[in-house]
């Protein structure tokens, strides 16, 4: 039972991280119908900025976190303005490949900065911060996992309020609903695109911090964790924010349970799934779900005219 709870907690905290990246994916997709493969790169670049500010420059952690998140948001905005603006109206495939190009660009620069030694994030509370853990009835919960959960929930609530109440939030919803009609109402759709990328960048930076915080560290392979938000988005449906959250929970829990139960299950059936199966399991689930529901669990079904 303790193992089950432990796996659940770890799975949920992973889910929280994935949901941050996943919401970024969905926001961009809803606004521009672009699948941004650059999102994982933004996440690790955000982590890199935070690390370089907090560790290399010695800036107080909270300020470094704040600056890192904002700078990543601005980076997202810049990417949209420079690379994606000329591509409006181009085929989906071209834009997707373009974001792969952006991904290569960002990660190459980041990799050359990281080098061989993994980078540490800062620590807000040196005595019991990112590296510490608390024991709750036999379950070992890292502070970092708790923080990820709380931050994700807070951010999701904030975003919900933003979309419901604020002027720009409503403008974004209008844009995703019908671009031309939104323009006719005086909404600056170009500005909305920029804003969407900025929000996606901010969310990615938070996710990047939680992926690489504590003992996880930022290495050249960190982006693979962020990339796992992709199956989450696909499971939930590319254009549904609740779907992204549900998909993230499915992926996170799967990964948690597989990590803990794979060995005992393998000895039960006498067949090995191999090393690192927990990393592949999300993609397998996505595979299966796409066969039965090509638009994801919550995505709107695409109606196509000839």
């Amino acid at each position, binding site marked *: 039972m303790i193992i089950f709870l432990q796996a659940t907690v770890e799975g949920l905290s992973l889910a929280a991280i994935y949901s941050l990246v996943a919401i970024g994916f969905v926001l961009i997709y809803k606004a521009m119908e672009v699948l941004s493969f650059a999102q994982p790169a933004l996440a690790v670049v955000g982590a890199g900025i935070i690390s370089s500010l907090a560790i290399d420059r010695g800036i107080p952690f909270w300020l470094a976190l704040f600056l890192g998140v904002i700078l990543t948001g601005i980076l997202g905005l810049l990417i949209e303005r420079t690379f994606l603006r000329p591509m409006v109206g*181009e085929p989906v495939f071209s834009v997707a*490949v373009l974001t792969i*190009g952006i991904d290569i660009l960002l990660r190459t620069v980041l*990799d050359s900065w990281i080098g061989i030694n993994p980078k540490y994030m800062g620590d807000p509370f040196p005595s019991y911060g990112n590296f510490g853990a608390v024991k709750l009835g036999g379950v070992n919960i890292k502070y970092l996992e708790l923080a990820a959960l709380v931050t994700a929930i807070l951010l999701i609530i904030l975003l919900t309020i933003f979309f419901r109440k604020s002027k720009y939030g409503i403008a974004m919803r209008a844009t995703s609903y019908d671009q031309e009609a939104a323009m006719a109402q005086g909404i600056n759709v170009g500005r909305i695109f920029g804003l969407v990328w900025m929000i996606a960048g901010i969310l990615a930076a938070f996710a990047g911090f939680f992926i690489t915080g504590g003992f996880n560290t930022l290495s050249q392979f960190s982006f693979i964790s962020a990339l796992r938000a992709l199956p989450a988005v696909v499971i939930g449906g*590319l254009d549904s924010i609740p779907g992204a959250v549900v998909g993230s929970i499915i992926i996170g829990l799967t990964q948690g349970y597989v990590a803990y139960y794979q060995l005992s299950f393998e000895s039960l059936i006498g067949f090995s799934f*191999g090393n*690192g199966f927990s990393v*592949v399991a999300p993609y*397998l689930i*996505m595979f299966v779900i796409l066969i039965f529901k090509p638009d994801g669990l919550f995505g709107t079904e695409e109606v196509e005219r000839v």
Partner: protein
Amino acid sequence: MRGRPNLYTDYQKESSIFSNNTQKSWFGILVTLSFAFCFLASDYWILLLTTSFLIAIAGWGLNIVSGLAGQINLAHGVFIGVGTYASAVVGGISTSSVIGFDLDMIFWLPLAGVAAAIVGLLIAPITVKLKGLNLALVTLALVFIGSHLFSNFKSVTGGAGLGRKVATLKLFGVNLEKGIEIGTFYLQKNQILYLFCLLTCVLAGLGFKNLVRSRAGRAYSAIRDGDIAAEALGINLFRYKASAFALSSFYGGISGALFFTVSGGVEPGTFSLLYSITFVAIVVIGGAGTVLGPLFGALFYTLFPALIQLLLHTFEIGEQSLPLNLGQLERLLFGLFIILFLIFEPRGLWGIWFRLRNYFKAWPFSY
């Protein structure tokens, strides 16, 4: 029709592989020159061109499914991997850790293509059902599932980080590893490989050109331009989408088997996401959907790093003085080229070539 090479009087003429004598003679000249190249150039350049021929074959493969049939495929590297391992098992030497049957090249080369094609057909029920971005995502999942399988089937692949030796070069019982002597004429291993890859590349290219003008090729283009409309025209979507994947994988498998024979060994970590994306980038940079595009892209991909090295060498810039190391510099410029080509010349290098050609065709008139 002298003086009016673009005037076609019948359909057969228009859809022929070489539409006029100029193309035919240029093709002959270029093939002869490339043939002669291996007796003139140094090993370095021979090896470089050999790899670019092989990459071009894989590029044509991806071009069938992505450029012609319009189905996004981010998992081309996995199919290449399947072909590579099929050839390694059939043609490789078995050791204590990996299996191999040490058969002749006439067995392992076609089998590599066939094995990859079978895998392409096996996933057809999924790939046919999806389109657009969902297909891209499924193929992305395939990359991860594929590399997981590659690194865990230790008896076939040697396992992650270790790898294995690939198929041995043995054609009709003649071992080519140490070169062959024909009379007084001596051919090195590199030269043999070069000639063989050149031949395969020419055949693959002609095969692609032939495919474009065939019934299947027209069906692929119809699917790319609108799959519902294509279905309404009586094109069997399942059949053609599945066959596009199978053909593309066949090309990939052949290319992979030869590619890793050139380099000697293969490690499962090679077939990563970046490897698959490289081919997408090569097709995009070269010009998606065109016949010459993948060849241009492959030449660009292999010769570009060599060019950078040459530049660094001639200007005597030490690698240490650069902020990035050479591999990273190449990757950075590669990413940049993907972006720039997509924004400024979506038809890729072929588009540049096309405009250049038309400019000089009409020169000095710009209309």
